[in-house]
Structure formats: structure tokens, C-alpha cells
């Protein structure tokens, strides 16, 4: 049996599946239900400073986009940090931690960007005996208008400064949550590291307008006919999150910095991909908000069964395994040549590969052969772009087959070269020509 116990910056949990700081972790009732369902840990919904709590809108807070059969693909929200009294939250956190000592509880915090504000709240959180803190530098809506959330996360100097205060005023591990609403994620990550953070977590939500009501011309979610941008999350953001996690994992300046992966994780498979790209554990929100807490059972068994099948004994066997394979475009092997291949037994003859290739790509797939509906790759035209694979409704019907070295590439008329050669060495690259001269 694979060991999926997790140790993230010293915070232990029975599995690497945490619930992210969000509506599902706003109070003891929800968190206890989550723990009963099997979640390894939670990041409690973000606490604000002492005093009258924030207020939320009283109309809709969420908007969504859907795929086939109304499967929720992307969710956006305009909810703020917890709108409950600080002490109520602290009391419940303490109580739940006492009841569930084997589970991780991390406090998410967002207070104004002033030293005194952080100095004031940290001892209160520490007193609850939860396992660590997460600095919410991510929320792109509402709080950012008040100089918090992503307004901090978009300024590396502020990140560094606040992290430094936190490391100064608490013994608890500090996880810095990053906003994706920034050009290059490496800069805030580096700043967090310079400030002494124990880890980063990402991504927070992406600024978004999810849809427009075409009767009222109001953005959704519509609050009395007006809408403001929200934070986008769910399966649709996973590719963006994976890239950002990988960028930090392979950046020489942040290499080795623990990462808690967040962004559209819905199944064990998503989680495994985040781990492989450098995440030490994962946080989930939208999937739980869509299907309820029970999904963690699928995640736990799926990850564990896959690890058993592949012979991975612990999470350390998986974490970062894909990172060395992430590279820059310029280092990709230009001598690697692949061609699409259609499995005629699996083909259902929908013709989508043909029309995608014919209308929008390289005219490399037949539609008719000898007067019969037939879809076949013409190797002399195929550039191996993979579009047909992606539009085919049948999994594994179209596959990309690498041409072995020595074979003829019918498109170029050249024999496949076994050596590795990338753009930096290519004669068409002006930089390479310069170097040769």
C-alpha cells in the first residue's frame, strides 16, 4: 500500500488533500464535516482584523461556465473574506483542532499592509494551536480595492515585507498564497522567499467576468443589474495553475521552496499532476463546492491505487518528478518527428479530425477514400500538430507516433536524425548564426 501521508513544512496530515481557504472552510460545522469525509487538512477561510467584520453582497456571489451536460468547468466568486467575528472563528478553530489532532488546520489571514495589524493578529492565531498560517495575497476582488489581497500580491516588495513581519512575530510556519493576476509568477515567489516564507501556495483566483446576461446586459453574477469582476477557479484554471507551479519549481531562485498546489484540482489525477510538477500537497475548493466533500474518497483511493500500480511508495517518489522535463521552447528537440495515426477500428467516423485539419490546419486528413467515408492521415502533409488528437471524441483513437531515427519523413523528404538539435543550434536562428560566426 502506498503511503500517502503528507508532511508539508512540518505540518502533518494523513493525506495531501487539503481544502483551500474558501466558503467550505468558513466554520466549524463545515470543517468537521470535511474531516469526517476524510480531508487531510483545511486552510480556514481568511480571517480579517479585529472589529466589525466585512460584509458580503446579499445577492448572488457565484457565476459559472459549463461544459457538456452542464458539467461545471469554471466558477467565479465575489465573496469576501470571512464575514464572521474574528473571535468566533478563533474559538472554533481551536476547538476543531483539539477534536481532530491528526488533521492539518492552517489559518488564512488578510489584514491591512501595516506592521501593527499583523503583529496584533498573529498571537491570537497562535493561541488556537493551529498548525500554520497562510497569507492571503491573492483575492482579486473586493479586498484588493482596500489595498489587501492581490493588491499586495502584485507588488513583490510588499510581499517580502509582510512575510518578514510574520516570520518575526510568529513561530508558526508561514505559507504565502500568490495571485495569478501578475505577468510573471516567479517575481512574487522570489519575494516571498526573500522574506523568509516557509512555502508558497498557488494559485488564488483569476480576475474574471464569467458571462453577461443578454437580456439585462449585466455581467454575472448580477447584483441588482450590476456586476464586478470576480475570482475565477475550477477545472478551467488548472492549466494556468500547473504552469505557475512548474515555473516556481524550476526557477533556480526558488528551487526547493515548498509549494502547496491549488487550481482546479477535481480528481486524483489532477492532484498527481500538481505533485509531479513540484507541489508538496494540494488544496481543493471548487470540486468540493460542486460535488460535496465525499469526492476526497475518490482522490485518496485514486492516488493510492495509481501509486501502487506504478510502484511509488510515498509522495516523495512522485513530488517534482516531472519538473526536470519542463523546459523552455528553445530547448525542445527539433529532430523529434511525430505523425498522427488513426486507429480505424476505434474510429467512429465523425470527421472532426478531417474538418479541423482541413479548415484550420494542414490539410493532412482524408475524408473520402475510393468513394467511401474514410479518415486517414496523409503523412506527407502531417506536421504532427496534435490538433486531431485533441478534437477526436474517442480517447486513444488518434495517437501521435514518433518516427524512428532513420525513417523517412514523407513531408520533408528527409531522414529522421537521431541526434538532439534545438532552436539555439538551428541555422535559421539569427542568434545561432551569430554564435557560429
Amino acid at each position, binding site marked *: 500500500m502506498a503511503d500517502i501521508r503528507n508532511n508539508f513544512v512540518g505540518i502533518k496530515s494523513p493525506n495531501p488533500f487539503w481544502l483551500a481557504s474558501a466558503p467550505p472552510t468558513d466554520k466549524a460545522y463545515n470543517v468537521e464535516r470535511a474531516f469526517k469525509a476524510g480531508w487531510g487538512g483545511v486552510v480556514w477561510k481568511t480571517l480579517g482584523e479585529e472589529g466589525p467584520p466585512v460584509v458580503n453582497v446579499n445577492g448572488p456571489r457565484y457565476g459559472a461556465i459549463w461544459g*457538456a*451536460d*452542464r458539467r461545471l468547468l469554471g466558477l467565479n466568486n465575489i465573496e469576501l473574506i470571512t464575514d464572521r467575528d474574528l473571535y468566533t472563528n478563533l474559538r472554533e478553530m481551536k476547538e476543531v483542532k483539539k477534536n481532530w489532532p491528526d488533521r492539518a488546520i492552517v489559518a488564512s489571514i488578510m489584514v491591512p499592509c501595516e506592521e501593527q495589524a499583523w503583529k496584533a493578529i498573529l498571537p491570537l492565531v497562535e493561541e488556537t494551536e493551529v498548525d500554520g498560517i497562510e497569507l492571503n495575497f491573492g483575492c482579486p476582488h473586493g479586498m484588493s480595492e482596500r489595498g489587501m489581497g492581490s493588491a499586495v500580491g502584485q507588488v513583490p516588495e510588499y510581499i517580502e515585507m509582510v512575510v518578514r513581519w510574520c516570520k518575526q512575530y510568529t513561530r508558526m510556519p508561514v505559507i504565502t498564497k500568490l495571485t495569478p493576476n501578475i505577468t510573471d509568477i516567479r517575481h512574487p515567489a522570489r519575494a516571498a522567499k526573500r522574506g523568509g516564507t516557509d512555502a508558497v501556495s498557488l494559485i488564488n483566483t483569476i480576475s474574471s467576468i464569467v458571462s453577461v446576461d443578454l437580456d439585462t446586459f449585466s455581467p454575472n453574477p448580477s447584483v441588482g443589474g450590476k456586476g464586478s469582476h470576480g475570482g475565477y477557479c475550477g477545472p478551467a484554471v488548472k492549466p494556468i495553475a500547473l504552469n505557475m507551479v512548474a515555473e516556481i519549481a524550476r526557477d533556480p531562485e526558488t528551487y526547493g521552496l515548498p509549494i502547496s498546489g491549488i487550481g482546479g484540482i477535481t480528481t486524483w489525477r489532477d492532484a498527481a499532476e500538481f505533485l509531479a510538477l513540484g507541489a508538496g500537497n494540494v488544496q481543493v475548493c471548487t470540486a468540493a463546492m460542486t460535488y460535496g466533500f465525499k469526492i476526497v474518497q475518490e482522490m485518496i483511493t485514486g492516488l493510492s491505487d495509481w501509486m501502487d500500480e506504478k510502484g511509488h511508495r510515498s509522495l516523495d517518489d512522485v513530488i517534482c518528478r516531472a519538473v526536470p522535463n519542463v523546459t523552455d521552447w528553445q530547448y525542445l528537440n527539433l529532430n523529434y518527428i511525430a505523425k498522427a495515426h488513426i486507429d480505424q477500428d476505434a474510429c*467512429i*467516423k*465523425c*470527421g*472532426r479530425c*478531417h*474538418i479541423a485539419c482541413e479548415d484550420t490546419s494542414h490539410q493532412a486528413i482524408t*475524408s473520402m477514400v475510393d468513394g467511401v*467515408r474514410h479518415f486517414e492521415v496523409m503523412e506527407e502533409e502531417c506536421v504532427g500538430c496534435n490538433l486531431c488528437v485533441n478534437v477526436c*471524441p*474517442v480517447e486513444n483513437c488518434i495517437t501521435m507516433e514518433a518516427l524512428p531515427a532513420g525513417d523517412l519523413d514523407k513531408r520533408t523528404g528527409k531522414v529522421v536524425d537521431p541526434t538532439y538539435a534545438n532552436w539555439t543550434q538551428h541555422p535559421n536562428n539569427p542568434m545561432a548564426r551569430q554564435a557560429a560566426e
Partner: protein
Amino acid sequence: MERLGNGPQAGIEAGRLSSAEYEANFADLHPRLDRHEALVESDRCYFCYDAPCMTACPTSIDIPLFIRQIQTGNPIGSAKTIFDQNILGGMCARVCPTETLCEQACVRNTAEDKPVEIGKLQRYATDIAMEQGRQFYSRKAPTGKTIAVVGAGPAGLAAAHRLAMHGHSVVVLEAREKAGGLNEYGIATYKAVDDFAAREVDYVTAIGGIEIRNGQALGRDFSLSDLTAQYDAVFLGMGLAGVNGLGIEGESLTGVEDAVDFIAALRQAKDKSVLPIGRRVVVLGGGMTAIDAAIQSKLLGAEEVTICYRRGKDNMNASPYEQDLATANGVIIRHWLAPKSIIGKDGPNGAHVAGIEVEYTAMRDGKLIGTGETGVIAADQIFKAIGQTFSASGLGALQFEKGKIVVDAEGRTSIEGVWAGGDCIGSGEDLTVSAVAQGRDAAESIAKALAAAAQPATAVA
């Protein structure tokens, strides 16, 4: 077998069921999809390139497009896509044997043995547009030409509508009391409830320029030469008015009836409880008419309904879906049985049916033969559903082949200015949707011919 209780009354009796049972039995076979169902189902369409479903549709409806329009919340646009090709798309959505046409061609069959439910989606869109009274077509400027259409069935209605679009005036001559043809008289009641056929006629003729004259029969009230003399063109779409006979002893006994008459009576009866039905019914034939008659016999309360077909299951014209529908309704389908004679019995009202003697059949050297072995099936009512034939007079020198009108690819007959389509032509497929396609295409051919004739003659160098 020991009888439990009194059992159903023998003979041909009305009122075998309670009114609730009649209502349930003759309700809509497949109620319309609701919006959610339509969205879920339309999501399944792959929007195939050069879609096989579209190729399989005799009217070539752009099925992937109309399904995508439903999926994006535009059922009205979807209905127009359907009506562009098939103005009787509403009825076709109900009666097309989709399992042997578009849905058979659906690539989802290959993928998972479950096609997209194209017929139900088509009904969803067309019902919405028709209930909103949305008319998508207007007439071009009047041409001053008038075309006679014989028969107000699917072929005639499709031709009339298309001709009206071109600005022609149309006079439809219909022998029966109501327009609609087999849509009105020949479709099982549960497939087109709530007077759908009549409502569809109103929808089609709402374009204007179409006058339907009922009670006008070819050969009785007018002849083809009358029409060619009076009108600018003629379209013949009178279907198959005759029925095949058995040619066996006892055929004239009380209780031996044509299935088409039974089906027509059912369709026209508002109150099904007044319709008499036998306790034991035998239906002879293997097509859709046999199935429709058998199922509806059962639904009227017959205790035992048996279809006898002289060939095997694979030879039946009724689709496997229809056969399954029959057996699911408790109909027994027996193959390789040919009628030999009908057995009568004297009663207070004269001789009536008591049973049918059948002979077992087999294929020998590619020929159907009787094996000599016989049996008797008790029956107090027998429906003949062994095919319809062309029966019309007053057609003059019109050329026929195998009892049907000869036409070319555009629907032109051997007589200039006369077109034909639907079941009465040689290539007629006994399908509403094919009749619609033929009517529509003949109308295009007529419009083209009239336009060419209207051009002022130009000198040819």
C-alpha cells in the same frame, strides 16, 4: 386452461376498457422533451463533418446545425433549419423510422450503441416554433400561374408549400374529407396526438396561396386531362388508395377488415370506447401498417393479438424498433405463416370469423413455399395489412411501371407539364419523409420549368 373469473367477452365488442385506460393507451407515445432533456441530449451531438445523419435523411435536413441551435438556446432558429428542408418536419419527427434513417447513421452508434435522439430533438424544435405560430417563409411576388396538386398528403403539401414560396397559386384537390393524407388517416393514433396532422396542414398552408378543395377525387370528379387543360402545371401525389386482397376463402366474412380502414377509423374517433375490437385478433402482414393495427388492437382491449407474417423476422418491413414496440405491448409476432383460409361460424347476425387456417412456409432455393403443414388460430377479427396498391383512374396516357407512375429524377412524368411524387411513383418508399422530399423537389422542378417558359424568347446565334 381453467378460466379465471369471467374473462373478456368474445366477439367484436366496443367499450372493453375504462375511460382512463383508453386515455392512457392512446396518449402521446413519446411526450416532447422538456428544455432540460433537450439540452442534455443535444450536448451529445458531435457536430460531425459531412454528417452521416444528414446524408441518411431523405430530405437532407442539416441535423448537426439544428441540434447545435437547440444546444445554444435557439430552438426557433433550429426549427427554421429543419423547415428549410422539410416543411413537414413536425410530423416526420413523430413518424420517421429514425432508427433506420438518421439515428442509424449516427456515429454515436459506433461509439456506444446509443445514437443521439435526433427525432425527439427535431420534435422539440418544431413544436416550439409551431406552437408560437412562427412562419419562416413568405411568398415571392405572384407569378400569375396556378398549379394543381392532386392529393393533400405529405407529397402534395410539401409541393404546394414550395410552389407557394415561388409565388405560384396552388389548388390542392383532395378526395377525402380532411387534408393530410396518411398523416391524417394512416398514422397510429399515439404517434400524432391532439390533431397534430390537421394543425400541421394549417401551419403549412398559412403561407397563403394554397387552396385545398376536399371531396375531389381523380377519376370521379375530374380527370388528368381536365387539369392539364386548366392549370399551368400538375403535381400528382395521391398515394396508394387501394389495398391488396388475400384471395382466399372466407375473405368476405364479417370480421375480416382492411387494417388501413381500422387505423383511419381510430384516428378519426374522438371517443375510442365506441370502437369495437375482437377478443382475439389476427393481423396479416409484416409492415408498419400491420404493427400499427396490431398494437392499437391491443390498446383497444383485445385479449390476444397475433401478427402472422409469411416470411422471417429479417424480411419484415416494420423496423426492429416497431417490432419491439409491438411485442412490448403484448402482441405476438409469428413468422413463416401464410393465410390459407378464413374459418367462419354462423351467428345471430350471419356468418362471422371464427379463426384462420394458416400454412407453415419456408424458403427453398430462394423461393417461398408452403410446407403443407397447417394450423388454425382462433380469431374473431382479422385485419389485412398486406400492402397498398395504386388505384386511380382518369390518368389518360400516363406511363406506368409495376403499377406505379414513372418519373425522372426531378419528378417529371411521361406527360409534359405533369409531375408526381410520394407513394404513387415507382421510387416511392412508403415513407412520409421521402414523399416530402419528392414533393419539394418536384415543386422546384415545376418552378424552374415555369420560369424558363416565362422568359422572353431570345435569339440564338
